[in-house]
């Protein structure tokens, strides 16, 4: 893991306007927004696997889409290799699309049902005019082998509906790699696959990372996957990053109550039986709570927590937590595992 920063995100914010009903428009009610991503900062270093972990609705997928410029940010900057790509368009944007790619969560919906597998994977080459016809076909065959779809000639002419979920996801991975990108956003790539297939795909992604010298932003809600493959983890809650650190730091000494609640609520047979129980549910992202977004569910919350939003505080060079009650929390939860 080098020290070069591949992607840097500064004060990234995305607000989605809520559809107003006709009556609301008539009454000239103020537009409300879903605070999907509400001011996040992080850096991803070359060669690392950076995990963005959180439950559904926390904004992690939106973050991924923002970085790949599939959605426009409301505020903030996206910096790729020291260049501000937040607002690039047209040809310039297309140039960056060669280097930044995304793998989607749903392998059943991300492939065009009317295109052959070979054509799906070849299409990026056509768009970016790489190589001639024969070379392109060769490249597709070669990458089909890399992702484990043997024999490639067979798969080239098949249609997505003839493939299983795991195979389709391999095709999606092949498509994202054919342009030899440097950075890949993986948006929950295994959550719609069967358990035994998940392991295959995760292993494939690890292998390809080494072979192709990739950097990953791996988005997931599954701490299991995150612990097995990530170098660093950032935990998101209601559009904000509440804790970020090296894998060991997060798993062994989490300091944010939400992180601890998540880690200890995961079902299974484990050595640690102490659990941090929290009640309630994730609040409505249209009206996030004032102060610390987590305060109304947090067993350690104080008055201050409800008034002032905590900033990410440095615990170590690599470990940051956004919480007013770090001292109390570390007292009660010195370490897990």
């Amino acid at each position, binding site marked *: 893991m080098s020290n070069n920063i591949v992607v840097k995100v500064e004060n990234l914010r995305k607000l989605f306007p809520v559809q107003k009903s006709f009556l609301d428009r008539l009454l000239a009610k103020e537009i409300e927004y879903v605070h999907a991503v509400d001011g996040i900062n992080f850096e991803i270093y070359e060669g690392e696997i950076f995990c963005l972990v959180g439950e559904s609705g926390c904004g992690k997928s939106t973050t991924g889409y923002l970085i*790949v410029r*599939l959605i426009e940010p409301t505020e903030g900057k996206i910096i790729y290799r020291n260049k501000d790509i937040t607002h690039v368009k047209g040809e310039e944007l*297309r140039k960056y*699309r*060669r280097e930044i*790619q*995304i793998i*989607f969560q*749903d392998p*059943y*919906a*991300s*492939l*065009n*049902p*009317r*295109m052959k597998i070979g054509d799906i994977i070849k*299409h*990026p080459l056509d*768009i*970016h005019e790489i190589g001639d016809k024969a070379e392109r076909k060769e490249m597709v065959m070669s990458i089909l082998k890399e992702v484990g779809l043997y024999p490639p000639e067979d798969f080239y002419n098949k249609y997505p*509906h003839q493939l299983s979920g795991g195979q389709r996801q391999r095709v*999606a991975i092949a*498509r*994202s790699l054919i*342009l030899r990108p440097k950075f890949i956003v993986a948006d929950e790539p295994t959550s719609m696959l069967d358990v035994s297939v998940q392991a295959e795909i995760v292993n494939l992604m690890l292998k390809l990372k080494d072979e192709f010298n990739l950097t990953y932003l791996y988005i997931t809600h599954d701490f299991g996957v995150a612990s097995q493959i990530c170098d660093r983890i950032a935990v998101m809650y209601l559009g904000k990053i509440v804790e970020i650190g090296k894998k060991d730091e997060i798993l062994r000494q989490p300091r944010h109550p939400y992180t601890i609640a998540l880690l200890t609520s995961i079902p299974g047979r484990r050595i640690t039986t102490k659990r941090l129980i929290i009640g309630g549910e994730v609040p409505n992202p249209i009206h996030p709570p004032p102060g610390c977004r987590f305060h109304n569910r947090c067993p350690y919350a104080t008055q201050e927590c409800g008034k002032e939003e905590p900033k990410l505080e440095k615990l170590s060079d690599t470990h940051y937590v956004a919480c007013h009650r770090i001292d109390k929390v570390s007292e009660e939860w010195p370490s897990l595992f």
Partner: protein
Amino acid sequence: MFAMSLSSYLRENLIDLIKRIRRPKTEEEWFIAIGGSLILFIILMTIFASFISPYDPTIPSGGSYQPPSWEHPMGTDKYGRDMLSRIIWGGRIPLAIGLVATIFSFAVGVPLGLISGYIGGALDRILSLVMDSIYSFPGLILAIALAALLGPSIMNVTLAIAVIYVPTFFRVVRGQVLSIKEELYVTAAIAIGANKWTVMGKYVFPNTIPNIVIVFSLSIADAILTEAGLSFLGLGPVIPPTPDWAYDLQKWYGVAVSQGYWWLAFWPGFFIMLAVLGFSMFGEGLNEKLNPLLREK
């Protein structure tokens, strides 16, 4: 690009379809089989008219108002012309007009629907308004108005009918495009760097084809009926002695009822019905078959 995806789609699916239709199992497959057979029958009959027609339909070959007999299985008309020959030849104009008009509507309506639906905005709003206005007119009335305006030639009647069906193609395609453009594979295409024309042509359009084929078939059915309607009202493009089902129907309808010369009105009407039924059943069957499939996964 459009032509390529259309032809490759047809190629793949036609073979599959024909295989399945040989042994129809479900209700939809029966519709497609029967409809398809009817269409085939009528088209073949029309194409090979000169080979199978026993007589020249424009010159007398028998007595006047002869009822069906061995020499004239469908009887003769007032001028002694053989009805069977007139029926065999009589499909040319309705089919030609129906087909050409529908192709024209398709060629105009589909691209407009595609672009309007995908790009949206002001263009979409204006086009939708125009199309909705045309669509809300009862088809036959509009056709009559246009035919009266332009004069009853074959070209003009074809044009009039074509105009009526442009909004149908537009609406169907646009509706499909609106939902398809939200699909994940379209987002994926954008993510790999495709520009909007590539996305429209390679990702959106091919997924609308099944529905377009359905509308195509149903439109032909409707077009034939409209043309028949126009002819029946005397606004048709047919100049005697050219055989045409609707023309004959209109001309002999009176005597058929008053004098009992039923064969003069029955057969033309029957064949019009057959043609319309064929295209309708085919389209409906295809609709039943393809649309549930599209909902899968």
